[in-house]
């Protein structure tokens, strides 16, 4: 799935450029490739297939899982008209998770694209919640490809070496990264109070909560509507059955009833494709439901760095205060040392010297630390703000297209309905 619409790879084209969702990605990616010099410009990436595998897991138990085939081809070869065979490797979902966690930790100021859902949520009754279900696997394949394309077209993320290795080499290097990733990720979910967070980040965090809440409510409501609509269409299948039986006992009305019955059956059957199509819309919304979390993570990271800066600054202030007290002998604040001095007498000058010296060292370290943390905080704020703006633009564009796609789907459904019922009417007129 390159940015080029209508690529030379027929297999890709046939597999993906069918659903409107994939076409959406096509056009969006086309935009992105034009804009920056990203990995996607140099390399055509796709998640071409999915397969079931069995193997022993870490506790030596037999398990079944799905692997996905990542295919890459150099863009310049394609542009020159050559059609090289793609390089490919198989990866499973958990490996994608490791990659993403790595990116989250390494680029904390970037709103990292989300993965497709781990388990099927917002399920309406017909859709299987089973991870092995072929429809779920297919939608996951599309989602994983979308993830890779988004990452590979990001101005900063796409240059990452680990990403490159993920796409082109089979290797275990990712697992090493994951251990440090886990601990830092855990830090992101801790609670702490920040005195002076950047207001823009505070607002963004509120927004991310709203985005998450609204998209999940919408998804839930949509799933229920889909469920009910399914019921309406399927019940019409009963008309098909009754008309068919009834036509057998009628003379003049028989033909009309019989053929009307066929149309009712067609009507009942049509809902399956319609709702399958709508799942793509749900997937587009889900992407932004999960993006909300990524956005919140950036804001949380800001809080964390700001908090650490505030802590470091405070620590430096108190150390400087201690030095002053030690140097002048004036105790401004209560301290045990001060108390013990009063009770047991002052300490010896050598001891005081030693302590002063230590303090000076700590203060020097502290100043370095504050400098570092200030820089880190500023960097994060700067980088984060830029990426959040980029994200906002991308979100507005993508979601608007998703809504348009939904309208197109509704139009298509209405046209089918008009067709079926007009046909049925013709049959009834022949009764």
């Amino acid at each position, binding site marked *: 799935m390159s940015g080029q619409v209508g690529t030379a790879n027929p297999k890709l084209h046939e597999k993906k450029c069918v659903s409107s969702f994939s076409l*959406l990605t096509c056009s969006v990616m086309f935009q992105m490739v034009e804009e920056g010099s990203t990995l996607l410009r140099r390399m055509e990436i796709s998640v071409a297939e999915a397969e079931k595998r069995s193997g022993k897991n870490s506790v030596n138990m037999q398990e079944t899982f799905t692997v996905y085939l990542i295919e890459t081809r150099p863009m310049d070869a394609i542009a020159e008209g050559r059609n090289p065979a793609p390089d490919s490797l198989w990866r499973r979902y958990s490996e994608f998770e490791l990659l993403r966690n790595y990116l989250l930790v390494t680029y904390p100021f970037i709103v990292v694209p989300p993965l497709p859902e781990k388990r099927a949520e917002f399920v309406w009754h017909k859709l299987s919640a089973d991870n092995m279900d072929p429809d779920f696997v297919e939608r996951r394949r599309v989602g994983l490809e979308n993830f890779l394309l988004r990452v590979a077209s990001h101005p900063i993320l796409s240059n990452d070496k680990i990403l490159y290795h993920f796409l082109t080499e089979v290797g275990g290097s990712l697992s090493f990264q994951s251990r440090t990733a886990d601990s830092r990720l855990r830090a992101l979910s801790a609670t702490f109070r920040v005195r002076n967070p950047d207001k823009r980040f505070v607002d963004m965090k509120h927004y991310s909560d709203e985005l998450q809440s*609204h998209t999940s409510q919408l998804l839930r409501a949509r799933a229920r509507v889909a469920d009910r609509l399914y019921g309406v269409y399927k019940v019409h299948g009963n008309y098909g059955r*009754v008309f068919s039986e*009834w036509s057998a006992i009628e003379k003049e009305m028989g033909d009309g009833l019989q053929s009307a019955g066929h149309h009712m059956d067609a009507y009942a059957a049509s809902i399956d494709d319609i709702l399958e199509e709508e799942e793509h819309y749900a997937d587009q919304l889900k992407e932004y439901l999960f993006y909300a979390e990524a956005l919140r993570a950036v804001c949380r990271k800001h809080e964390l760095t700001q908090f650490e800066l505030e802590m470091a600054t405070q620590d430096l202030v108190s150390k400087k205060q201690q030095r002053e007290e030690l140097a002048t002998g004036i105790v401004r604040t209560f301290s045990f040392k001060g108390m013990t001095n009063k009770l047991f007498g002052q300490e010896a000058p050598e001891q005081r010297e030693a302590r002063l010296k230590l303090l000076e060292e700590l203060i020097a370290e502290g100043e370095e630390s504050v400098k570092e943390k200030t820089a880190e905080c500023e960097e994060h704020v700067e980088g984060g703000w830029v990426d959040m703006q980029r994200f906002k633009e991308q979100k507005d564009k993508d979601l608007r297209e998703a809504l*348009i796609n*939904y*309208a197109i789907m509704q139009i298509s459904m*209405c046209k089918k309905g008009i067709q079926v*019922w007009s046909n049925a009417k013709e049959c009834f007129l022949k009764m």
Partner: protein
Amino acid sequence: MSSPTVPADFSGHMLDLDEDEDLEVFTKKTSMTDGSPMPNSPSSMVNQYGLDEEEEEQGTSTKDIFITVDNPESQVTAIETFIMYRVVTKTTRSEFDSSEYEVRRRYQDFVWLRGRLEESQPTLIVHPLPEKFVMKGMVERFNEDFIETRRKALHRFLNKISEHPILSSSEHFKVFLTAQELTPHRKQGPSFLSRMGETVRAVANSVRGLRSRPEEFVIMQEYVEDFSNKISSMDKVTQRIIKEQKEYLDELGQYSPTYTQWAGAEEELAEPLKGMAGCVELCNKETEELISHLADVLVPALHEYVLCAETLKTVMKRRDNIQADFESKSEALAAKKVDQEALKEEVDALADRVELANNALKGDWSRWQNSMRTDLKSAFVATAEKNVEYYEKCLAVWERFLLSQRTEPSEEQAGEDAS
């Protein structure tokens, strides 16, 4: 027909089986007039109730009688409360003294009329009346929808009778349409006891069994059984569709607010999100209308024929009884040696009766089948049209939305690619 005179204060309520079939209303409202003026010209009345295809059925003959049932009003007396309907007749038929009549009738009166018609013509197919009250579903006996449904059915009943070549010239029919006070006429005719007698004989005959039913009536019987099953299924399926549509409607109602709420948190996206909410709301309204059509047009039409199927079964039983009567007397004639003359006359009369009954039924049967085909065809066509209309309206809603989004500056090719 001759009838015993009945004392004016005869508390016929005690013996009149039809009493409890009437609708009793205990609401405070004393008037339920819809207030709409009745059109006066015959031609406008023909088109008033869409399902009636009188012109088709009449063939080349023009309709010369127009009957409407409207204006249900509740009447309160010392003993009871019930609904009275206005029945207006306009006609050019010579047997009517005047060209226009207006009377008030209650459900009980319709029941009386139908009973008389069946009695006078036991093997003709007399259109059924709406039922006493609906058992399943949440329809309350006294509510406006139920009264309106009943009114429409009573209207159809009278029109069906007026179209029947034989029944419409019934004296009872004329009396029903013209007499200001029906009560004196109602107490005439076979009494409760004689009706009971008829039922007892019918049961005895059915126990005895029929020697042999003529082939055509065997076929008819089978058809009636099958038809009854199919039309009941149609009724049930339609009710089920309404139920599913209502649940769909409920969920749609929850769906559009999620777009509105989200719009509140967005800037650029607020406008398209609100647009979506609007579209879903409009589709919501269209779904409501579709449900109304199903409930007000299709269900009554199907239900009417469910009742017809029962009528057909009853008619067939009556025909069988007439044949059974003849056969039993005929056997008696063959067995007995005495009183052969008198018995022979009776048997001959019964033989005639059988032939009349069979012919009447045969004639009415094809008439009924045509009528059924026309009525149901019309109802199905209307439903298909309503569905097409529903989808056309929803289509327009979404196309308008799409257009509004495409004229925005930042919009491009995704829409075109996907369609």
